[in-house]
């Protein structure tokens, strides 16, 4: 059954190829269905792998597929690593991916109408299937190079999907710019990963995970070796900060919200951005050898969690709040793996995939509801001026409760899960991370607690702004619920978000031995996992803080604003600091000043001054010099044959005279 694992990639790949070449001929309905089937088939294969693993006593298996590169002593193959870690990821990716494919069937049909190019419908599924294939290559890889193929492949899909409406956005170029930004920033991370691969190969002589970890078990590191391993892990971290949107490379993710909402849910929340956490977890053996790097990883995660949280509280775009929330939650996971709590990190990764996908998808449902409302309301009232507001702006929403009977509930579940209220999934996984931090690094613990407080607060704010109070626009007033194809995946995800905590529930007697945790034991076949005892203080503190944050949100936003132009109550509370938060600490501007502008200037300088003015000019001047010498001599060339003959005669006479004298 293990030999079926290539199919997990081949099904989406086949879907990609079929839709890429024949999407137009197939027509929208069949193209979408094909893509969903491909994703579903991949999920089934992943389930089969789970069964196969169970039958194998959860021992890891390597499934070689084909030769790839064999140059000198260097060798990598196309091969899959099937273990509990990769299968966990496969299940999440293919599972959530399938649900989002289904959702996209309905959502994109409306989206392409709204954006005025229905012909682009199949293309979306082309990209989405390619993404699934790449992501599954990433998680299934048994070596760094193959992981890198998936790593850049998902980056490409992210680029394509952010730029799906490449002619939209600010000045018609905003989306395309966002896509380019995402790819380039990711490439900076990839640069780190690339260097890490070189170092690993030349230090340990292999890029295959199993061989590498085998060698690491016996390796004795001297000072240089220690330095190299630290360098490797830090470079891997650079890769992870790029893909998982951590400080300092997180800047692409908020802009990536330019992509259609299913993309935000699948790629920029549930799966791709967690690749960094997966990669670090996969390389836990390496990281274990570099404690300083672990420290750095943990601090970057914690800092990102808090930093992104502060920005999220002041955003008004419904998807941007979720984007910064994603960055923050990814920070939690990175912090967890940095603390060595790999299981906690993976656990949060899984639950986060559920509830953040749910939040994004229901946000998409809300957005389309408002869009429909705008179209209707505009038709009713005949007023077009107000209809031109941004359908994603929460300031123009409000009062949607009751209008969206399914979306409202699933959104609430997602929000509370994210806020970390028991007994929802987010509570368990976040609590696990906090517990690890509490035990290992109190400073990080308090940073994470602050971040958790902010999480609950901005989710409360979002809930209140979107669903409660008075509708602040005609569009919101006329909003209607989405079709079943959209809401069904929402319901499934809501159930997963609600009961996801059970994944890592203590196994009370069911399997015979108490005190162990389900996911922990499952993953312990791939990574070391320590079982920490339940800590009532941590659990209580996080619950109380979540409730307090929600309460604060209610105090501030409970009496909803009447119009969209009202001042944000938080601004009154925070004063000028609010402006900083709203403008994202001016990090984009800072990077523009520090990196983008100098780069452009340098490039222009190199092209104009250095290349045309320097190199080219130098050689042209050499040519000109020859020409000038020639022109100087040419003044003796009057063009009259007689003068030339005279000079010739002069020469002849001179030669004759020379012979006479020399004799």
């Amino acid at each position, binding site marked *: 059954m293990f030999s079926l694992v290539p199919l997990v990639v081949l099904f989406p790949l086949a879907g990609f190829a079929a839709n*890429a070449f024949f999407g137009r001929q197939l027509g929208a309905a069949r193209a979408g269905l094909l893509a969903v089937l491909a994703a579903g088939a991949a999920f089934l294969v992943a389930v089969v792998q789970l069964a196969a693993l169970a039958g194998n006593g959860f021992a890891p298996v390597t499934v070689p597929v*084909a*030769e*790839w*590169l*064999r*140059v*000198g002593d*260097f060798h990598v193959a196309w091969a899959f690593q099937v273990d509990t870690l990769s299968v966990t990821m496969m299940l999440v990716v293919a599972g959530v991916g399938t649900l989002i494919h289904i959702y996209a069937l309905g959502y994109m049909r409306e989206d392409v109408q709204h954006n005025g*190019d229905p012909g682009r419908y199949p293309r979306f599924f082309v990209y989405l299937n390619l993404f699934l294939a790449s992501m599954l290559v990433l998680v299934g890889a048994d070596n760094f*190079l193959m992981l*890198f*193929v998936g*790593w*850049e*492949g998902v980056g*490409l899909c992210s*680029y394509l999907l952010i*730029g799906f409406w*490449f*002619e939209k956005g600010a000045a*018609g*170029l905003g*989306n*395309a*710019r966002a*896509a*380019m930004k995402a*790819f*380039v920033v990711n*490439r*900076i991370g*990839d*640069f780190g990963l*690339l*260097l890490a*691969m*070189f*170092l690993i*190969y*030349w230090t340990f002589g292999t890029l295959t995970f199993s061989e590498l970890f085998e060698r690491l078990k016996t390796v004795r590191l001297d000072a240089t070796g220690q330095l190299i391993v630290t360098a490797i892990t830090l470079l891997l971290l650079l890769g992870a900060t790029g893909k998982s949107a951590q400080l300092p490379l997180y800047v692409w993710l908020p802009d990536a919200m330019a992509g259609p909402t299913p993309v935000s849910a699948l790629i920029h929340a549930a799966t791709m951005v967690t690749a960094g956490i997966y990669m670090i977890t996969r390389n836990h053996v390496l990281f274990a050898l570099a404690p300083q790097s672990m420290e750095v990883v943990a601090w970057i995660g914690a800092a990102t969690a808090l930093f992104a949280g502060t920005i999220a509280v002041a955003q008004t775009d419904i998807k941007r709040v979720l984007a910064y929330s994603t960055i923050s939650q990814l920070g939690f996971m990175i912090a967890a793996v940095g603390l060595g709590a790999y299981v906690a990190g993976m656990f949060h990764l899984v639950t986060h995939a559920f509830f953040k996908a749910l939040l994004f998808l229901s946000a998409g449902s809300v957005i389309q509801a408002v869009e429909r409302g705008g179209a209707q309301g505009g038709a009713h009232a005949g007023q077009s001026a107000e209809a031109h507001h941004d359908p994603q702006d929460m300031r123009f929403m409000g009062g949607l409760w009751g209008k969206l009977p399914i979306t409202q509930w699933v959104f609430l579940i997602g929000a509370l899960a994210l806020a970390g209220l028991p007994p929802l999934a987010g509570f368990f996984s976040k609590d696990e991370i906090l517990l690890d931090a509490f035990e290992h690094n109190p400073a990080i613990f308090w940073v994470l607690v602050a971040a958790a407080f902010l999480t609950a607060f901005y989710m409360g704010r979002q809930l209140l702004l979107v669903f409660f109070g008075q509708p602040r626009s005609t569009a919101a007033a006329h909003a209607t619920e989405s079709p079943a194809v959209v809401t069904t995946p929402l319901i499934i995800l809501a159930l997963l978000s609600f009961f996801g905590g059970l994944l890592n529930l203590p196994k009370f007697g069911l399997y015979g031995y108490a005190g162990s945790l389900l996911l922990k034991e499952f993953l312990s076949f791939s990574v070391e996992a320590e079982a920490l005892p339940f800590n009532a203080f941590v659990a209580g503190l996080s619950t109380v803080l979540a409730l307090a944050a929600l309460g604060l949100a209610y105090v501030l936003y409970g009496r909803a604003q009447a119009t969209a132009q009202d001042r944000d109550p938080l601004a009154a509370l925070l004063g000028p600091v609010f402006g900083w938060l709203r403008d994202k600490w001016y990090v984009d501007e800072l990077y523009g000043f520090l990196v983008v502008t100098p780069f*452009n200037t*340098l*490039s*222009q300088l*190199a*092209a*104009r001054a*250095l*290349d045309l003015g320097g*190199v*080219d000019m*130098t*050689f*042209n001047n050499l*040519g000109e010099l020859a020409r000038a010498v020639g022109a100087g001599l040419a003044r003796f060339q009057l063009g009259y044959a007689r003068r030339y003959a005279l000079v010739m005669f002069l020469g002849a006479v001179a030669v004759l005279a020379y012979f006479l004298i020399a004799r």
Partner: protein
Amino acid sequence: MDVLFSTLTTVTAFPLVGVVILLFMRGEQKTALRWVALTTALITFGLSLLMLAQFSIAPGFQLVIRTPWFRVGDFAADFYLGVDGISVLLVLLTTFLVPIAIASTWEAVQDRVREFLIAFLLLEVGMVGVFLALDLVLFYVFWEFTLLPMLFLIGIWGGERRTYAALKFFLYTFAGSIFMLVAIVWLGLSYGTFALPELMARGLPAGTQTWLFLAFALAFAIKVPVWPLHSWLPDAHVEAPTAGSVILAGVLLKLGTYGFVRFNLGLFPQAAVQFAPFLGVLAVIGILYGALVSYAQADAKKLVAYSSVSHLGFVMLGLFALNPLGLQGALLQMINHGLSTGALFLLVGFIYERRHTRLLSEFGGLWKVMPIYAALALVVFLSSAGLPGLNGFVGEFTILLGAWDGYAHWGFAAAAALGVILAAVYLLWLFFKMFQGEVTNPKNAGLPDLTRREVALLVPLLILIVWIGVYPQPFFDLMAPAVDALAANLSAAALAVR
């Protein structure tokens, strides 16, 4: 007669048959002329496949033919051809690209078609000859022989500043090869033979290697082009007709890198070891500089031309890693660059035929108007940017991996890896300016998408781009024995130097 009908002679000389036929045809029968040239080029490609079939994966020169050519006193040159793992792929690349380039001129060239095609076929003879010649004099003759057809392709069928560009191209390359000629003559007169295998077997003393290395290196460095000798390239590319650019980037630049492998590494290993860090620095500067300058270009073709400087920097870096990884990566990257950049120039040519401009500011939003064009362009751009799964990545990764532990410092590889980021920057910028956004220029609104002929031109290239990206092993296998022998020779030289 054996010599005349041996595989390598026919591969080299078959285009001449087409030239003769073209000479006897009337200039007005344009379509017939094109068919004759295309058929000739395709048959030549078939012959080169025959050569591949006869080629066995082993070190050393194969299918060798040798016959005295001329003899003046001590000066004896042979007609001496042979193929090994280093040259076999380059010959195939040449014979593969020429039919595509000829087919790309179907509508683009309407002026003096017969002469154009003759120049093209003659160019093919010269290029294949360079890759196959084992006699230094023969090599030099073929080397200079490639110069003239290209000079005419640029100078007659080129753009507005064609005379300037053609002259610059000619003077640059010619100036470099003069030094090579001196070195060749010196070698032949000192050792009594111009035969490369014999010279390699004999080995040269370290002292003479140094200046001979420099003389050869100058000729090749201009052709590659190595920074800062590159400034002829953008002009030549911008003015050359599309097919000329395809061949110029696809094959002619490889003559330089091939020369480096064959002569500078093969014949002067000790000097190569000594100069490796120096050329490594130039390669890295070329990579970063080419990428930076490329990003600032306003003309699509110029952008692609400067990207060649960057990409060939990778090749040079791989070569002067002097280990099997770097060498094989560099050899594969030569092929990759030929495919990807050839395709890039075709793509730029397609839009130029439609709009008669290549200024980026004139475009925007073409994805909406020409979806097939955009999709194919995207694949080619990504291949050029080194996306894993496509050919560019395999080459670049192998090169960088080799260079990390090469004779240059690992920092070179690290700095060169920055070029991978920059490649994404300028290629995505190109894609952004051409294809994304709204259609702002009304002139672009009604552009027809690619015709079947144009797609058919790109498809063979794309197939190879994906093939090499996913399963490059057959290509590596072909070159492995030859490269291993070369690398062994180099490491022996390194021991001698240190």
